[in-house]
């Protein structure tokens, strides 16, 4: 299928278009794109914008699978346009559409605000009683590699929305927060530096919790970063049930202590000092 000589082939991009200001309903439009080995879907979209139709809208930024902006339906799966090879998913016709389960801002731009709202309700940040004190000082919190491992993979989430668009429960139940917010809720709940169980309990134990998940597992299968939100949701259920039965370890866990100064490791040999600040201090800015 792949032309190894690098000569161009043509693939029809069947793109879902919709401009809410003038179109009564979404429709599909075909664009013929010359494709070479190594081209990703995002390259095809840029070709369309530069040569065929400058009005085509989508969202993208980093082009390297880091920012999570270019999540869209490619063929029959939600994926990132910047790391999906065109010739891996299509030989003649490639269907490109905005992520399902979200509203459409325009063309391939989904309205991700419901996901971000649900995400913020999960309080996705470290919570501790001594937080103000920590923010003032230059303190270090102690965390072992094993404790880091518990949440590390969930911290790779780039909030692209692919898991949300693959989730059958999000598709039918608008009150279900979805895999992305719940996985992040678990990520912070299980972080040994966090002490926010009391604050999170009311959110996670109610309708905003993981209780409607059917464990279809589609969220985990489509995640472009290899995060397993399905697993996070099941682990979250376990933690919350153990907490309900007063058997959870989190209930009696104290957040990780500050590392005493004498135990701090100095700079290792061969590692250079950080360069001087290039941004002026706030006071200087105001004064200047």
């Amino acid at each position: 299928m792949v032309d190894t000589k690098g000569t161009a082939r043509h693939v029809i991009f069947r793109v879902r278009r919709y401009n809410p200001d003038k179109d009564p309903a979404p429709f599909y439009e075909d664009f013929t794109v010359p494709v070479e080995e190594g081209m990703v879907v995002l390259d095809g979209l840029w070709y369309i914008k530069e040569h065929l139709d400058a009005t085509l809208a989508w969202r993208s930024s980093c082009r390297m699978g880091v920012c999570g902006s270019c999540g869209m339906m490619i063929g029959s799966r939600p994926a990132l346009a910047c790391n999906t090879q065109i010739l891996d998913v299509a030989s003649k016709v490639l269907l490109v559409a905005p992520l399902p389960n979200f509203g459409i801002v325009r063309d391939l731009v989904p309205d991700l605000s419901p996901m971000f709202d649900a995400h913020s309700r999960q309080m996705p940040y470290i919570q501790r009683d001594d937080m103000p004190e920590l923010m003032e000082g230059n303190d270090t919190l102690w965390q072992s590699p094993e404790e880091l491992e518990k949440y590390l993979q969930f911290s790779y989430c780039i909030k692209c929305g692919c898991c949300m668009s693959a989730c059958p429960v999000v598709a039918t139940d608008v009150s279900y927060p979805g895999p992305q917010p719940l996985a992040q809720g678990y990520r912070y709940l299980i972080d040994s530096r966090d002490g926010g169980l009391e604050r999170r309990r009311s959110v996670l134990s109610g309708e905003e919790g993981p209780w409607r998940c059917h464990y279809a597992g589609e969220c985990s299968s489509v995640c472009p970063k290899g995060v397993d939100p399905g697993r996070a949701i099941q682990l979250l259920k376990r933690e919350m049930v153990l907490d309900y039965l007063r058997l959870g370890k989190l209930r009696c866990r104290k957040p990780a202590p500050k590392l005493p100064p004498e135990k701090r490791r100095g700079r290792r040999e061969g590692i250079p000092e950080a360069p001087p600040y290039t941004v002026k201090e706030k006071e200087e800015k105001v004064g200047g």
Partner: protein
Amino acid sequence: MRERSLWTLHIAAGLAVLVLLGLHMAVMHLTAVLGLSSMNPAGHDPLAWENVVHRGQQILITLSYLLLLGVALYHGLYGLRNILFELTASAEYRRFLSIALLVVGVGMFVLGSWAALAARATALAAGS
């Protein structure tokens, strides 16, 4: 908070169904294999009248049936509630649905309990 309690009970009810249904299957179909002749003293046919009367007189059997009925109804109706909840996010609809399913569940439990207790009363009368 309420949803977590309901879901935990749902899982606990599922486990209880497994245990109680296992007991029921053992008593009704595996007496010869498991050597439970005390449950069916008149032979291996669990539906023989003498065996039915004997089991009906055992308070533990009646209680296990009542418990099985309760946990199976809760487990099933909570699952049905979850499915029906996906039809709409309206709070009024969900409240109505929860109450309706609660009424249906209690009604079915009362009806099933009446049948189990009536069977026990018949067995006690037949044995006396």
